[in-house]
């Protein structure tokens, strides 16, 4: 391994759907074990950024480098096996499989552990994410909040080295939100780097080391969380105050 501490690097990533620019020359570096928060208004291009990182979308320009390796052309399933795990903002459970089976697929094909290991891994994650009692329930019958938990749990079951979380705290009670923050802190202790898109800013700030504000597909500002929150760019985005 090189001395380079960066785990993930985006270099000049751009993407447009017709006339709509959803990513514009984005440079981003995620260091080993770092937790990065992403904020920005709806339609800013946050989820699109995850689709670009995980290979569900191909950028028009730019490169994506994972631990020194250029993965710009790699298909999503290979990126998962290379250590990129993600949750979807709108949950996409495997509806005809049970919750446990949802995780099993991720453990067997993403983490690529043996059948016996997968059972233990999935069991641990189900209990960590509060889904243990629903293990044998069909994922299609879960209410929305449990589907969101399942998104986190299934991403964890791929045993990611980089975890991409897309708006998982919305709709939680204060107590649940507090537990979620605890859980994510616990995940970080294992050395997992995180990029977390979140509108629930107080939860985000309780976890992240750095913050990025996206607007119209551009990085409006980035840096230490407190500085970013105070910046005139973020004030402008959220309060409509001209920058």
């Amino acid at each position: 391994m090189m001395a380079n501490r960066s785990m993930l690097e985006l270099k000049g990533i751009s993407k447009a759907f017709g006339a709509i620019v959803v990513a514009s020359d984005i440079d981003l570096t995620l260091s080993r074990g770092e937790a990065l928060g992403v904020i920005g208004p709806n339609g800013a291009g946050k989820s699109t950024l995850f689709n670009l990182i995980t290979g569900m979308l191909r950028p028009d320009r730019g490169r994506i480098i994972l631990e020194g390796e250029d993965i710009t052309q790699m298909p999503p399933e290979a990126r998962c096996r290379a250590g990129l795990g993600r949750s979807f903002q709108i949950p996409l459970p495997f509806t005809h499989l049970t919750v446990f089976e949802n995780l099993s697929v991720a453990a067997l094909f993403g983490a690529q552990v043996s059948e016996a290991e997968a059972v233990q891994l999935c069991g641990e994650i189900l209990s960590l994410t509060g889904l243990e009692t629903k293990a044998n329930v069909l994922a299609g019958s879960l209410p929305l909040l449990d589907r969101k938990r399942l998104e986190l749990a299934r991403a964890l079951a791929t045993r990611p080295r980089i975890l991409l979380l897309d708006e998982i705290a919305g709709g939680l009670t204060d107590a649940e939100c507090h537990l979620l923050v605890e859980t994510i802190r616990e995940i970080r202790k294992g050395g997992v780097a995180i990029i977390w898109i979140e509108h629930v800013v107080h939860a985000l700030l309780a976890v992240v080391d750095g913050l990025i504000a996206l607007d119209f597909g551009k990085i409006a500002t980035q840096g230490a969380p407190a500085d970013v929150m105070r910046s005139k760019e973020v004030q402008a985005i959220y309060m409509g105050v001209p920058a």
Partner: protein
Amino acid sequence: MMLDRPQHLPLVADPAPANTVWRATSETRLSRVARIAGLAALAGLILLPAIAPRTLLQDLFFVFTILTLAQLWNVLAGWGGLVSVGQQAFVGLGAYVLFAAIGLGSLDPVSSIAIAAVATAIIAALIGPLLFRLEGPYFAIGSWVAAESLRLVCAQFKSLGGGTGMSLQSSVYSSLPGLKSVQNLFGVRPAIARDIVLYWIALAIVVVVMLAIYRFVKSRHGLALAASRDNDRAAGSVGVRTDRIRFALWVAVAGMTGAIGALAYLQKARISPDAAFSVTDWTAYVLFVVIIGGVRTIEGPVVGVMILWGLIFYLSQYGSLYLLVLGVIAILVMLFMPKGIWGAASHRWNVQLFPTQRRLFRNAYH
């Protein structure tokens, strides 16, 4: 309280092998009973030719071939989401390859069935990439168009009878394995001995195919297939190569469908493009069986094929009217029991003879 307090998380270090807090199984007490009952039924079916009249063996030959096709379509469409209405293409191809291998290549029937399976799988592998560009209903339509095209191609081969078809010489059957022994053992004419041997071959194929499908859907690859069907993007995001697993399924199912086509027309001894590529005989029946029995279960097609057999038995005297009756029944079942007859019963009484779901349990001593 919705979230447990975080315990330790084995995300980085491998969990110790001795650490078996959890266990997973798909077995139940009932499924073990069903396995024994299944073995007993199989033994009965193997011995049946000793007492059964010839017509029953011929009926059961039909039941086994349709059941095999139904199980194959069930795994393809039910588990894999590849809703093909063109599987008659592979029945017809398999049948034609068998006639070519026997008629032109002078091969024995059993090797010809194997060759039919391989050839059909190869052709499926060639047309698969084209069909896979189509999604949902377009895939179904594409599969049907492909079947019609292959029928027209087969009708071009003058040496195989062209559009009118051809027959097999009865001498072909003399090289069926075990024919002489059956004649001597049961003291029957060669024509009856042939039916007995073909019955056993059909029985062997249906049993092997059902066991293979049952094992597959319970395996990790079966899980990956079901995940790909439920959500392709999400399956990719957790590391599943969705295209590859669908393609492998498509090719394997086509190959086995070709083997059944070959066997069915070996028994009929006469082939024509219209019959071998018949959408009624080889797809409508099969869909009927799966849909009224219950999609995505092993038991469903078994129930479905028994119902089909009964209906054909009682309704065949009314001519083509019975197709109408089949259609009406299929529509009623789809409306009132969308999971099929077995699916509804299984749901209502919570019974599964061949469970496929993996269930997770916490070991009691933890």
